[in-house]
């Protein structure tokens, strides 16, 4: 069932929802970008509709609630351990189709990749319901159509599309019907907007030959890439983390274990005992990342990891285009046949 709301009643709906749900949504942070007086759109807790950035694509992805960049998992002292507390209220996360598609990838790694489910992931994941932000147009570097993540058939409780001063919502979850019935002036079928074509197109090949490992196409990234890891930190499907065991300095017997985001592009990722480092060159790191996203993950799980959101291309300070690399790999694979 779908509803039409005015911007004002949508605002009332959001403040009503915020009584029962926390709301995690893209927010335009003024002047918080890399450069002076440049904004950044990233996720934060909000309590009113005005704060939600519904028009621009977020620079950072919605994964930051379920997999925070930095999270204390537990505290320890002597023989005791205590898990950290979290806010157990359910949370509505606003995301686009690519973000919702990325959830399957996150779940795959944390919940369905071996015997154990990650409890610290699960306790957050269980609180989350997604709100779909419709895409009325493709953004600069999006290639979701090629990655088949441009459209969401399920996985959201309601959708939000701005058009002609109104808010259009598809509400597949009946639990939210009462909220919408209360504020909507018009009930009708709504189909969330999605894009059917991106300017950027990639062709992903299923047959990447082993010889791609030593292909020269990676060489330029050894010098072009600055191994900052931005592409990983903004990626909605990157799941790598590392641990910090911290001992409080006033009392060395008390401390905490923190999980922090890790990047396969950043120094230290492949360091091993004895000083070894498996991928020293940035070109090698790029190869690992790209092949993981468009080949290795699929070999293991049967579908592509990359959702084509293009955030890696948006944020790369060196103008490296991930989508271009995908096409280069396909081309090189074809030539190798």
């Amino acid at each position: 069932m779908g509803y039409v709301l005015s911007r004002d009643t949508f605002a009332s709906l959001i403040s009503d929802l915020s009584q029962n749900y926390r709301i995690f949504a893209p927010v335009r942070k003024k002047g918080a970008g890399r450069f002076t007086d440049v904004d950044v759109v990233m996720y934060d807790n909000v309590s009113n509709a005005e704060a939600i950035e519904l028009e621009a694509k977020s620079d950072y992805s919605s994964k930051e609630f379920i997999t925070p960049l930095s999270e204390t998992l537990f505290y320890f002292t002597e023989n005791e351990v205590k898990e950290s507390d979290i806010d157990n209220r359910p949370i509505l996360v606003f995301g686009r189709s690519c973000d919702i598609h990325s959830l399957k990838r996150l779940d795959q790694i944390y919940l369905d990749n071996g015997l154990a489910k990650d409890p610290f992931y699960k306790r957050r994941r269980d609180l989350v319901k997604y709100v779909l932000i419709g895409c009325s147009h493709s953004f600069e570097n999006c290639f979701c159509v090629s990655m088949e993540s441009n459209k969401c058939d399920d996985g959201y409780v309601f959708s939000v599309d701005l058009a002609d001063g109104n808010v259009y919502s598809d509400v597949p979850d009946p639990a939210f019907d009462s909220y919408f019935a209360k504020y909507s002036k018009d009930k009708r079928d709504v189909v969330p907007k999605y894009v059917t074509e991106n300017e950027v197109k990639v062709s992903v090949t299923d047959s990447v030959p082993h010889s791609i490992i030593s292909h020269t196409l990676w060489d330029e990234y050894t010098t072009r890439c600055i191994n900052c890891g931005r592409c990983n930190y903004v990626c909605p499907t990157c799941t790598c983390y590392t641990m910090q065991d911290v001992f409080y300095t006033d009392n060395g017997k008390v401390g905490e274990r923190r999980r922090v985001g890790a990047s396969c592009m950043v120094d230290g990722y492949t360091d091993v005992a004895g000083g070894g480092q498996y991928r020293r060159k940035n070109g090698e790191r790029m190869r690992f990342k790209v092949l993981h996203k468009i080949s290795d993950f699929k070999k293991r799980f049967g579908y592509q990891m990359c959702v084509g959101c293009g955030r890696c291309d948006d944020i790369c300070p060196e103008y490296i285009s991930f989508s271009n690399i995908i096409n280069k790999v396909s081309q090189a694979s074809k030539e190798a046949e």
Partner: protein
Amino acid sequence: MGKLDINVGKLKKNAFRYSKVRGETASRIRIPGGVIDSKSMGKVIEIAEKYGTGVINITNRQGIEIPGIKLSDMEKVNADVQEIIDSLRINQPEKGKGYPSSGTRNVIACPGARLCPFGCYDTTAFAQKMENNIYPNDRHVKIAFTGCSNDCAKVRMADFGIIGMTEPQYNKDRCVACKACINFCKRRSVGALELVNGKVVRDTDKCIGCGVCVAYCPTRAWTRSREHYFRLVIMGRTGKKNPRLAEDFIKWADEESILKMVKNTYAYIEEYIDPNAVEHKEHIGYIVDRTGFEEFKKWLFEGVNLGPKAEVNQRVYWGGRHYDKYGG
């Protein structure tokens, strides 16, 4: 054409150069902040072709000098530069008469935050505001703006040098200890950051507010302060007697205070300038050397309310070579 009968003092104040070539002058175009629109640039070209020799000098202080103009053409040139004066919004008591003074030099600015990734503020806008604040004035004052501690505008050669600063804001919850900020602070800046228990600690005494940590942080754990801050360095100079670099005076200063302090300096100059100074021109620094820094500060701080973050060096000592005392 009759014999030339020119008031050279007036000519100079009208922003024309006294040229070594007899009968010739050069028109000096002010470009506050170093930004000129293409139409005005077109006018410069037109003047150079019409009255000059088709040559345009780019000056050391981001101005333009059009040489080879006949002294007899000055009035016509003044009529033509009006369009440029209007377009660059130069203060002028009487239209059509050219520039009203030249003592207070063109205000310099690096490209700043409009273009440069490291710029901590809009240098051009501040320079234009400063120009509006102090021009026209015959007193010899040099002011320069630079976006960050790189000091590409070489503001330490000026009487007042304004260096952009940002106060890095740290959100530890977004920090993944990738160490980009620590490494780049060390390599590109002063090494004010270290990793303690998986999070970054900033040495606030050492930090120069350059913003390198913010520029290199991949997660937005580091962001810029909402406020733009400035390091004010003062009384740098070139010249024959005692060339020297400007020294740090105020760290974390604010825009309004800087505008006010520079304005106050003019009253101080009127009070203490050497009445016998050649062409009534004396670098402020030499006046400060004579009156003592305490007296200068008294005038400077008149009506100024520095922000809570401002750190003032109450004593400032300058170095440089003293050719006037010890010879070359």
